[in-house]
């Protein structure tokens, strides 16, 4: 598909540039937090800034850019956005459970003990 920069008006170039810089900055902030935070359970929060804000902003910038450059509606970047939004919580929850399992097995840190099934509250389990 041929797209050129000459097709793009100024009112589309400014939001494209701004959204690109904002998305990249959010990703950088997430990475810095990922380096600086102390424990693993705090550290797992930081990269989600890049996967939500960074992906969202750069995806919208790419949609605006290709829609104005080819003079037709280009929204296939939504695929990446939906995919990342669905898969990131699954990944991080699996990783957090794995880390909790390892910490309990090695008994280091102050992780909460595993709840046995009879200690759990009984409501909501009847169905």
């Amino acid at each position, binding site marked *: 598909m041929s797209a050129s920069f000459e097709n793009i008006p100024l009112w589309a170039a400014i939001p494209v540039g701004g959204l690109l810089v904002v998305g990249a900055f959010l990703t950088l902030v997430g990475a810095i937090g990922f380096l600086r935070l102390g424990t693993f359970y705090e550290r797992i929060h930081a990269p989600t800034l890049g996967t939500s804000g960074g992906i969202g902003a*750069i995806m919208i910038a790419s949609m605006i850019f290709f829609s104005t450059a080819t003079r037709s509606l280009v929204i296939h970047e939504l695929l*990446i956005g939906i*995919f990342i939004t669905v898969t990131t919580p699954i990944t991080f929850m699996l990783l957090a459970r794995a880390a909790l399992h390892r910490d309990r097995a090695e008994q280091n840190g102050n992780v909460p003990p595993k709840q046995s099934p009879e200690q759990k509250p009984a409501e909501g389990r009847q169905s």
Partner: protein
Amino acid sequence: MSATIIQISVTIAQMMIVAAMAIASIRMFRGPRAQDRIIALDTLYVNAMLLLLTFGIGTARVVYFEAALVIGMLGFVATVALAKFLMRGEVIE
């Protein structure tokens, strides 16, 4: 004018994303335990996908979109497999 704005902001965004990738790889080499390294790998995958999207804007080609999609899917599968390995000790039971 608009081409200049887009080129400059694409360059700035690429430098920021490359800095984020460098920081993630520092954590991957330094990370105290295996789960830190796995999260660093996942961050590296996401940042590579963002870098490919900005590449696509900078060169005005749609080809980079498919590469970004494939990298996102491979990153998800790799991270889930590694997390499963940490939890169970094997990937396919």
